[in-house]
């Protein structure tokens, strides 16, 4: 492995594009050979000749022949990816970084707080927890998005609600007449849930502002720094601990993260930017 070219992407065929919301699409990829990742790890996805960007697969880590990546239109590369049709050949490098430490979750209640496209990595985690639900007490999933149209993975949510040990709560910033669930920012859901905090861990992923207020709220509720896990989003280029773009204080987020326990990073500069 050591003399493999770390910069050369594996080819992967785009086999399906799923429209999740007006700004978010999922891309189902078939890598040219089997591709394994742990939930929470990320890949560098290449759009040939255009650019490369980091994404966390949103599919189950137990599926090895296909991988799904959910992408929000956010700028130059992601807008071009959104225009793709099935059949396109893309490139993937990875998997990189440290994913969710499932061993630290076993035997506990797991509070999962997601916002917007932050659901993507969390869905992979939820798939993984479904497969291992005998090893956890309960999973409470709280999800917030801008409006009902931006709520992604609707069929998946419907299934999850039927699942034993899983509870689902959703909110939108701006509701319309179709909406029968909560209204308000994602953190309002934390007032609704019942959780035995001492016996629980919390996982947060979403836009920086939501992560910041999510963590503040969890701390207020009585969670300790060591019970909160975050998926950090930083600028990345190499994913390999070399290019320096992802540095967050002493950490290379691409290798030491992207998943961190809050106590590990709370004293580093600019964590919410």
């Amino acid at each position, binding site marked *: 492995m050591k003399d493999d070219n770390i910069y050369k992407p594996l080819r992967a065929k785009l086999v399906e594009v799923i429209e999740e919301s007006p700004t978010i699409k999922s891309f189902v990829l078939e890598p040219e050979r089997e591709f394994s990742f742990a939930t929470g790890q990320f890949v560098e996805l290449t759009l040939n000749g255009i650019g490369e960007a980091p994404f966390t697969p949103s599919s189950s880590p137990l599926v090895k022949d296909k991988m799904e990546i959910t992408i929000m239109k956010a700028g130059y590369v992601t807008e071009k990816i959104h225009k793709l049709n099935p059949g396109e050949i893309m490139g993937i490098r990875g998997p990189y970084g440290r994913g969710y430490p499932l061993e630290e979750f076993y035997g506990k209640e797991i509070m999962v707080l997601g916002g917007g496209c932050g659901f993507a990595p969390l869905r992979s985690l939820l798939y993984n927890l479904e497969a291992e639900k005998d090893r956890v007490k309960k999973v409470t999933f709280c999800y917030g998005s801008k409006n009902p149209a931006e709520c992604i993975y609707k069929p998946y949510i419907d299934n999850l609600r039927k699942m034993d040990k899983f509870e689902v709560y959703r909110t939108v910033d701006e509701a319309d007449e179709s909406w029968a669930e909560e209204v308000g920012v994602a953190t309002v859901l934390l007032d609704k849930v019942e959780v035995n905090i001492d016996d629980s861990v919390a996982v947060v992923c979403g836009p920086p502002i939501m992560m910041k207020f999510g963590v503040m709220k969890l701390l207020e509720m009585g969670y300790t720094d060591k019970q909160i896990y975050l998926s950090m989003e930083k600028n990345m280029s190499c994913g390999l601990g070399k290019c320096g*773009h992802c540095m967050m204080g002493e950490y290379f987020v691409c290798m030491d993260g992207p998943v961190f326990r809050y106590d590990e990073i709370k004293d580093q500069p600019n964590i919410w930017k």
Partner: protein
Amino acid sequence: MGKISSISATDWQTVLLNLARSYSFYAPVSFNGSMDYELIDEDNAGEIVYNHPKPSTPLKTFFLPVKENVTADLKEQKPALIMGAPSCDLAALDILDEMYLNRDYTDIYYKNRRKNSILIGYDCQSMLENCHCTSYGINPFPEKNFDLLLIKLDDNLLLQSGSAKGTAMLKELENHARITEAEENDIKRIEEKRADLREVLTQKNNKLPGYDSSGRLIKASDDNIWKSYASTCVSCGACATICPTCTCFLLIDRPDFEKIRQLDACQYPGFERVAGDEDPLEELPVRFKNRYQCKYVWKPLKFKSIACTGCGRCIETCIGKINKNELLRELASENKV
């Protein structure tokens, strides 16, 4: 000093021409008051400068070119012979090797260039205004990462091997020239020169805090000093580009899944910008401070090797006339009060 060989200056000229034929041979040549590596051939072999501190270009450039296609097949290349690397630049290879060779992922292009080159280090026999190697535990004469060490003394050149490659090279040289064991007296003179220069450097930098204390001072500093020093920074990135240990890069995509590794710098606006336009380094003083924190506070927590070897290039090159050492001395003096 270990085993030192000696060769006469006349024989050395013949050796140089032979080397220029077998290798891509680079050595420092001076022009317009500065000195830099040039490709050596018979026309300029006589112009090589010996034992003068610091070519303008840092050594890293030979191993991490400013732009390189990092998806192309590795090509067989004429081996490179790089002569004239000063101690600070050789010491800087430690952190590069740690990053590009010894971490979980090896950069095969870097590895290939390192393997394919022979390094001839120089003792420095004088200092430039901003040299401060000794403040960070580095002597002004190479002690690591060289294959051969070369010191010119009047009519003789003294050579010492620092690796198996160096020893093989010395053997090869014996085919073209008379190589003898160095005179006791010459070795003594070198040792004196070394001790003298080290003393001069230490004296000149006696107010400069050491590497670890600099880290502690930066960590404890408040925003004002960064605002004040950054006021003339124009974000040109020259300080990072010229630094022998700064190697941040950006991967650029080309058709056919080609990727170019291009030197980048945290001093350029947007270096850490993410989608949604959040940018932790948006404000100039924060961005300016980032480079100091990286070198003195963060890298030391991640790597065994130091991230500033005291070459002084960033000070000489700064268009805003920002003097890193003046800043560190100011931090140190404030802290004492």
